[in-house]
Structures are given as structure tokens and as C-alpha cells.
């Protein structure tokens, strides 16, 4: 057994072991007039209580921090996994789709074209997969402590941003290697990241709540993600499809987003219609899923 001792900890010995609770400003004679908490059965319609979420923002931070910290513990390669996953996928796609199948890539070198698609896709796929399973994986918390439950799928999505940032470094290196010049379009990049995050949150939150009741979600998820990837322009450009079918593809919010990433990184003109549509679908999904989440939330502790 390996038990490490830190030098810093030993200095703590000097503190007196008699623990004393610091005085609080709370006095029993001075009760608030209004209840701090009122507990009653919720009405059918309950809005997202933003003040409640705000009060628990530190918990959100700690859960993200935990997810990030734990993810690569006891792995040999550690954080390198965040790079390997999109990088290896890119190499395989380049070989099979770029070289052998000759999939067009809008006159951008296929490796960098594919990586620019895989970068947001990998984030999105991992985010919905992790957040979809997050509530079920946190049953011990849900049955023992109160906090706004949305924090759990939210933290799972946000933790993916760290991997995204690491994988983005490779994107930059690839762009330098292929001599891609950045343009003002890159300013839209953070907006696209936000949009991807919100979409992942909308989908992930809904799936996580559904997963509490229907454990089928866990099995359907990998399949869904795979299918969704082929319906998104990750390995092929949107222009690959005949014009007649292209509008159908843009109903998928990831279409506008992934194409947006490419436009932003490679200085291509944006497809504003597709992007607006993506944003609208994302917003709609987010509203619906937070409503559905709030509705299902009430029974989480009883059925999880």
C-alpha cells in the first residue's frame, strides 16, 4: 500500500485538536419573518429557479472540478486521451474517407477538414453521453442531499470543455502546419463553442432525466450518437449532399454548428441561414428540456 505523507500536512499538528465551531451571526431569537424554505407539492408548471441555481454555483464548480480531476486518474496516458480520441479518429477518417473513398472537403486538406468537424463533435458526443448518464451515476447524491438537480448534467457537460480546450491546441498546431491563415471570422468561434455547449446541455439534460425513469437510454445513447454523427457533416461537407436534401440536413442543429466551426477557422463565408436555424433549434430544445427536467425532477429521489 502506498500512503504518501505530505510535508505540509504535518504542520497541522500544531493546531489544537479540540475543534471549536466558530460563532455565527444566527440567533434563535431573531427568526426571519418569511420562511427561508417552504416545502409543498409543486404545481404542474414549475419554472427554472435561477436564484436557486445561483446559490449553488460553487457546487457546480466543485462537481466540474471533480469530473475533470477524476477522469484521467489511474490512466497511463492521462490527459493525452483528450487529444488521442479526435486525432486518431481524424487519421482513420482521412485514410478511409479522404484517401480511399475520395470524400470531398471543400478544397480544404482533408485531415484538417475532418479535425475541424471532429473537434466540436467529440465534445458534443462526450458531453451528451456523460451528462445523459450523470444523474443515474449520482443516485447516492440525489437520495441524500438537496441541491438543484440540473447541476449534475450541467457539470458533466461543462467538464467536457476542458477536453475540448486541450483538443483545440492540436487544431491550432494543424492549422499552422497546413498554413491556414486566420481571419476575422475566428471571432465567432467562442459563440460557436457556447452554442455547442447549450445544445449539449439541452440534449444531455433531457436524456439524463429520461434515463432516471427509463434505463433504456443508457443502451440507446451510443447508438444514437453514432447515428447522429453520420447525419452531421463531420466527415463530409454539407455541400456533399444534393441541394434538394440540404435543408433536411440543416434541421439537425449540429449541421449549422459544425459548418460554422469550419467557416470560422478557415475564413469561409458563413451559412447564416443554417446557423440561425441551429441557434433557434438549440434554444427551443433548451427551453423544452429544462421544462421536462423540472417536471421529472420531482420523482428522481423516489425512483432512481
Amino acid at each position, binding site marked *: *500500500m*502506498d*500512503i*504518501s*505523507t*505530505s510535508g505540509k*500536512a*504535518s504542520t*497541522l*499538528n500544531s*493546531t*489544537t*485538536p479540540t*475543534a*471549536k*465551531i*466558530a460563532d*455565527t451571526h*444566527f*440567533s*434563535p*431569537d431573531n*427568526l*426571519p419573518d418569511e*420562511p*427561508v*424554505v*417552504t*416545502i*409543498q*407539492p*409543486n404545481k404542474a408548471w414549475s419554472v427554472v429557479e435561477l436564484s436557486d441555481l445561483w446559490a449553488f454555483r*460553487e*457546487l457546480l*464548480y*466543485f462537481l466540474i*472540478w*471533480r469530473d475533470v*480531476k*477524476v477522469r484521467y*486518474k*489511474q490512466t497511463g496516458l492521462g490527459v493525452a486521451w483528450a487529444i488521442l480520441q479526435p486525432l486518431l479518429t481524424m487519421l482513420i477518417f482521412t485514410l478511409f474517407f479522404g484517401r480511399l473513398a475520395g470524400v470531398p472537403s471543400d478544397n480544404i486538406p482533408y485531415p484538417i477538414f475532418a479535425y475541424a468537424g471532429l473537434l466540436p463533435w467529440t465534445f458534443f458526443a462526450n458531453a451528451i453521453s456523460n451528462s445523459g448518464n450523470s444523474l443515474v451515476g449520482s443516485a*447516492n*447524491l*440525489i*437520495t*441524500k*442531499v*438537496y*441541491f438543484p438537480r440540473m447541476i449534475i448534467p450541467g457539470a458533466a457537460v461543462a467538464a467536457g470543455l476542458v477536453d475540448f480546450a486541450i483538443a483545440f491546441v492540436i487544431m491550432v498546431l494543424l492549422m499552422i502546419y497546413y498554413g491556414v491563415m486566420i481571419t476575422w471570422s475566428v471571432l465567432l468561434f467562442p459563440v460557436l463553442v457556447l452554442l455547442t455547449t447549450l445544445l449539449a446541455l439541452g440534449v444531455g439534460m433531457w436524456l439524463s432525466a429520461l434515463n432516471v*425513469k*427509463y*434505463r*433504456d437510454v443508457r443502451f440507446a445513447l451510443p447508438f444514437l450518437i453514432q447515428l447522429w454523427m453520420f447525419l452531421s457533416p463531420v466527415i463530409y461537407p454539407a455541400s456533399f449532399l444534393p441541394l434538394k436534401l440540404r435543408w433536411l440536413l440543416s434541421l439537425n442543429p449540429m449541421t449549422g454548428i459544425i459548418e460554422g466551426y469550419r467557416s470560422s477557422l478557415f475564413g469561409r463565408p458563413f451559412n447564416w441561414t443554417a446557423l440561425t436555424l441551429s441557434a433557434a433549434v438549440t434554444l427551443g430544445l433548451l427551453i423544452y428540456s429544462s421544462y421536462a427536467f423540472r417536471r421529472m425532477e*420531482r*420523482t428522481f*429521489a*423516489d*425512483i432512481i
Partner: protein
Amino acid sequence: MRPIVRAESVSKEYAIGAREAVYDTLRESIVEAMRAPLQKLRRRNGERHRETIWALREVSFEIAPGEVLGIIGANGAGKSTLLKVLSRITEPTAGRAELYGRVASLLEVGTGFHPELTGRENIYLNGAILGMRRAEIERKFDEIVAFAELEKFLDTPVKRYSSGMYMRLAFAVASHLEPEILVIDEVLAVGDASFQKKCLGKMGEVARQGRTVMFVSHNMTAIRSLCSRALWLDKGTIVEEGAAETVATNYLRTTFSTLNQRAWDDPLTAPGNDKVKLHRACVRPADSALQLDAISVRTPFVIEFECWNLVPGACLNLSLVLYNDEGVALFNTGPTNEPVWHGKPFPAGLFRSQCYVPGDLMNEGTHRVQLHVVQDQSVVVFRADDVLVFDIIDSAELRTAWYGKVIGAVRPSLQWRTEMVDAAGERS
């Protein structure tokens, strides 16, 4: 004084099985949906009901600020559900509760501990989960570490901790919570003796600071000494509410008298066979003045049986086996030194046998009596399992600072002697 907690007709209904691992699957839902028209028909006929139970039913009470309220009751009485409702983990089906202060609930020690994270990291994580602010955790960090006595292992992942170390760390974090209302579920049932003592000391401290505490426990000694008031729940409703001492005593007396006394008046339906029939069985304190009192570890008590002997001339004797709640047979006893009837043939008729068990012998807990009726000291003609089930409670007067159960199947009071052999510890 205005109450800090006010519960009005709080009720919670559970669909039976919903609390257990019964997950819907999509397939089931689809099948259900297709059968729905049929179901509606059935429901109209009143045949099909969704089976539900009321874990809490119209529970109303108030807690004054600074009060320590103990909640007692048998398993399934609704104690934990009440705590879960008040700590907002689950919603009540009906009713309302108002809390005039911040609540922290401690339904489990170490909620959200992550095995891969170090002790230091888990202090922060667990603190945040229990509702502490980061600045608050930082301020109390050294105190928490000192309380847990884990200075050396702060940077070790908690998965390498022993269970005792794990508990100490978890309780250290939890005990530094500073909510106005603290909700605690049976956390004292864990840990070793010195740890329990520390926890209880800490709880007493919390109570003295004027915090309001709700505390569920099966440990009546702890309830009696820590709580000012107690609430006794049974099947989701309040049976009694009042001074902790009184409620705890009444609870023990009522709950455990169920199989203290049994009687069968009609020989035809009484347990037994064509050789012997049982008429009465009871357990009671040996001192008749204490008839109604619970049996404590100090009380001498009598186990009494009345049987009809149906075969004239049979040479019968009773043999009792006492089991504790872990199913361990504590001893087997028979009337081998009984002066009058032992070894003699019994005429047909009703016989009473009493077994006297001295005080300061048994440990606390539920005990079960198994009865054997033996003929000619070798053939068991009748056997009755769990013919009596009774509880022996802890005696508060024996306690100093230790509230946990004394280990061991029995708890005899033995003679001790201590003397000084040599001064200054030098061996010659």
C-alpha cells in the same frame, strides 16, 4: 417563541415498489399505452388500483429554535421519509412545511466522497455538497483535519483509507456545518467506540450552540440524553410527542410488549399436539412491582410457560433456548435442578414452569425464546420457535460517556479487583 420549523399535515405517498428498483422501460410504457383503453375499463370496474402506501400521513409539528428533536419509531414508520421531505430531497404529496432557517441534512456520512480523490480534495467536495461555501471550508479546513486526526493522510486517495479513517473524515466535515437547522439520520450507528463518543460530544456541542437539530435514532440512550423532545412515528403518523425521556420510555414499553405475553384459552386451537398443548407464555420482570416496565439489562426476569399435559404419567420437562437478534443461541436451559417435579411422571392437567434469569447477565437487544417439550429427557415431543420475542433495553444508569452497544452476546456484571503491585512501575 415562534417555531423555526412548522410542518402542517405533511403527507407522502409512495407507489408500492416505486421506492425499490422497479424501473419502467420504454417497452413497458408502450405496451401499457396500447393496453390503456382496456385498463380504463378495468379501472371503472374498480378492479385495478395502483397500490400505494402512505409513508407519512398528516404529520404536523413544530420545533422551537434551539430545540433538539428526536424522531423514533420502528423500521418503516416514516422517520427517514420525514427527514427527506424536510431536507427537500423528495417532495411531499400533500401538506406544507415552513423552515425559518438554512437547512443542512446529514442522512449519510460521506455523501459524495469520491474514492479517487485525496482526503484534502474530498473535504472540499463533500463540504460543497453539504452546502458549505468555499471560503467557509477554507476557514475551517485545519479544524476539520484536526478533528478527523488524519493530518498524515491528507494527500492519500480515500480509497486507501480504512473504513474508520473514512468515517472520521466524513464526520469531521459534516460536524463543521453551521446551518440553523440540522437534520441527522442515524449517523451514530457507525464507527468505533471512541469515534462515537466524539460524535456525540460534537452533537451535544451543536445543540448547546442554539442550533435546531432533528435527529433520527434507534439508540434510545442517545435520544434520552441528547434530545429535549421526541416525536414517535408509527405507520406514518405521530403516536406521541413530548419530553424525550417520556416518549422514549413509552415507545420501548409499547413496541416491545407485543410478544411478551401470549395465551391460548381453547386447548383445541392452542399450539401443541396430542401429548402437550401450550396455554400461556410470558416474559416479565421478576419483581412484580415492575410488571409493566420494560426489561433492562439490569432487571432480573422470569420466563413463564403453562402447558396442558394430555398423557397421564408422561415424564415431561421444558427446555428453552434463548437467541439474540443475530440468531446466536445464547444458552439452553431446562429444569434439571427443579426440586419438586423434575424426573417425576406428570398426571394429566395444567402445569406452570418458571425460569428465573438474573439481572446483569443479558445484553440489550431483541431476544427470542424457542421452546422444546422433552419427554423422558430425550424425546422432543413438541417444539415452538419464537414463542416469545422480547426486548432487553439498555440501562441509562450504567452509562458514562459511551452510548453504543456493548459488544458480546451477554453482558454479565463481573467481579473486578485492581491493586497496585509496585510503585513507580519498576520491576524488581
